[in-house]
């Protein structure tokens, strides 16, 4: 028996709950993007020469690229010269322990409900918190180190483990991959790095918390996660941003590498500010997430709960290179008011006997638009590849839209690819039935959508599933009845 409802009751607030600005002095780059800014970021971070060269290569490539406009979303083009590409909360000196972190900054985390101390003591979740562009502190580091697990900011990894970073960065998402990944490669300021050694089962959830704080900044984190042979890790990413009038850009890159027999579970709960009721403000979330099952029997599983951002453009993907490798994608995407989401996945079957499973649940309310876009590719050597896709849409009201674009490319005739799709509406009958049992409409909607999204919610680690259920309820507040 769970207590999801009382949790929902407590947190059904009508405004974006995380809309506060932390008053911390920031150490910033001036707005705009040019080679000097790239050099500035690299120098700030005291990076080795190879890293700077890699960034510059990405920057020069980006200059030649055009912003994509094929996704089913409409927005005012971003002016890349108005964005600040680096904003670090100013700290007097390098911190040696969490206790030395700026108290204002710690208050921010407490407001977010992720007091680092608390997390450390109670929940047993190791957290790397990224505020604006810089990674603040990683809990549990020593305990993980005993197992040989490296979990730190990517800046630190560049200093301490350059051989690993150099080997893997850009190996799954090359700098030339797309417009936003090229941009990210040029200007990423921080992010998380994780390496799980051979045969190690990571004993706790690893987690990154992202928050955009300073005005007019873009956030470009870079996450690199390597699970060596036979290892296992479950990783969670959470995000918030304060309310601002202007739109803010978030263009992250996440790369996952699973070696033979390794398993990576990557979960995201995304609730960036979605903009107000009229569609003003909000985060543009243009993210490239990709994992590769490098060896046989490797497994990568993406789970995402997307409730925020004014625009979401995101397709977590898996390259199934190793024979018998498996890829999974479980997604709940909620759009309300003027939000637009174009999200889905790509499953690239290259190895033999590879399997993938896609479960996408789209919930649209208000005048929002929610699209699922998925590609299942079966290469000519991928004998006996199997895919199953299930895409369900739930509509609240009749001014919103749900669209499904499944693309299938099969080059091996032993493959079996199945696709199912449904669209339904929350029925007045369902709501009245709940009402008659004493349940008000708001709560009824929360129950119905959580039921709809259950298959995906079940994939989340327990403590985050409760959080995610609250988020669904909050983001659909006031959209029915």
């Amino acid at each position, binding site marked *: 028996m769970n*207590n999801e409802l009382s949790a929902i009751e407590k947190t059904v607030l009508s405004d974006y709950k995380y809309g506060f600005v932390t008053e911390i002095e920031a150490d910033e780059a001036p707005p705009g993007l040019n080679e000097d800014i790239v050099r500035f970021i690299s120098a700030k971070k005291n990076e080795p020469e190879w890293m700077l060269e890699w960034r510059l290569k990405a920057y020069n490539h980006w200059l030649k690229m055009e912003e994509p406009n094929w996704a089913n979303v409409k927005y005012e083009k971003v002016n890349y010269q108005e964005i600040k590409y680096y904003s670090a909360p100013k700290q007097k000196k390098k911190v040696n322990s969490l206790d030395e972190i700026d108290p204002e900054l710690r208050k921010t985390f407490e407001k977010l409900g992720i007091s680092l101390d608390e997390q450390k003591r109670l929940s047993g979740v190791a957290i790397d918190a990224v505020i604006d562009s810089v990674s603040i502190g990683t809990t549990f580091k020593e305990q993980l180190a005993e197992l040989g697990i490296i979990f730190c900011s990517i800046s630190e990894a560049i200093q301490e483990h350059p051989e690993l970073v150099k080997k893997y960065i850009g190996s799954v998402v090359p700098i030339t991959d797309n417009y936003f990944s090229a941009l990210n490669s040029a200007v990423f300021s921080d992010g998380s790095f994780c390496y799980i050694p051979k045969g190690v089962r990571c004993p706790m959830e690893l987690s990154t918390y992202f928050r955009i704080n300073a005005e007019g900044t873009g956030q470009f984190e870079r996450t690199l996660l390597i699970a060596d042979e036979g290892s296992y890790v479950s990783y969670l990413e959470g995000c918030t941003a304060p309310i601002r009038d202007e739109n803010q850009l978030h263009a992250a890159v996440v790369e996952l590498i699973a070696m033979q027999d390794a398993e990576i579970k990557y979960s995201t709960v995304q609730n960036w500010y979605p903009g107000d009721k009229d569609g003003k403000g909000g985060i543009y979330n243009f993210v490239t997430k990709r994992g590769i099952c490098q060896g046989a029997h490797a497994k990568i599983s993406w789970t995402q709960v997307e409730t925020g951002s004014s625009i979401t453009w995101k397709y977590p993907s898996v390259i199934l290179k190793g024979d018998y490798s498996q890829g999974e994608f479980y997604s709940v995407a909620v759009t309300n008011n003027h939000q637009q989401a174009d999200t889905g996945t790509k499953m690239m079957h290259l190895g033999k006997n590879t399997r993938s499973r896609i479960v996408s649940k789209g919930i649209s309310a208000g005048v929002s638009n929610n699209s699922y876009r998925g590609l299942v590719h079966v290469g000519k050597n991928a004998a006996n590849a199997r895919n199953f896709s299930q895409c369900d849409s739930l509509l609240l009201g009749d001014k919103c839209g749900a669209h499904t674009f499944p693309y299938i490319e099969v080059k091996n005739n032993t493959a079996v690819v199945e696709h199912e799709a449904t669209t339904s509406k929350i029925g007045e*009958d*369902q709501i*009245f039935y709940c009402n*008659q*049992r*004493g349940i008000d409409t708001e709560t009824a909607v929360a129950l*119905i959508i*959580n039921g709809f999204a259950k298959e995906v919610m079940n994939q989340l680690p327990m403590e985050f599933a409760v959080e995610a259920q609250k988020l669904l309820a909050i983001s659909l507040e006031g959209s029915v009845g």
Partner: protein
Amino acid sequence: MLSINNLHARIDEKKILKGINLEIKPGEVHAIMGPNGSGKSTLASVLAGREDYEVTQGTVEFAGKDLLELSPEERAGEGLFLAFQYPVEIPGLSTTNFIKTAVNEVRKYRGEEALDAVAFLKLMKEKMAMVNIDQSLLSRSLNEGFSGGEKKRNEVFQMAMLQPKLAILDETDSGLDIDAIRIVANGVNKLRNKDNAVLVVTHYQRLLDYIVPDFVHVLYNGRIVKSGPKELALELEERGYDFIKNEFKVEA
């Protein structure tokens, strides 16, 4: 406890209830019978507060309150329960979780503490035995894939869990096999006491063998055209509705 006075209701332009009068006192069982389409379910829906129906005339008092002023969930909080003729399905929502939410929302309305998991389980076990419902059904999604009879049994189980002042059972017997009718009726009887009342809508005398009514009413063309003791149900079973239809043809 319930007093309905000259109640008129319509949907869109169609008049369905055309002046219902009905008085139900604590401890009583009333049965409503009547041909298909006469307005029985409409009456139940209007009492439960379904917004599709517009009340154009009349008053309804329930437990000292103006029922028509209350929202559906407030009516439930006040102790009005409707066992639906066609219970809805909610995929993915566990039946147990739904009922727990309902029980605690009603408790909240009454200013009572929410039941914790232990107390809730205890209550559930007790009521499960009373209406003879299987645990496995309750862990499934609400009514999803339930057989007709299972849905009805689930309605009565919810009634047992919510312990309403007035329970309206809309054709709860239809779709039940002979044994199930007896079990469900026994469940309802066990829930009866001097402070609550039951309004049974049915087409068949058989249910009334078990849930013995104090009064039987015939609803025809939006009006209660005949009321009588429990023997009236037997007469209807024997003679059908024709004699009533003929009697009231002129007014229809």
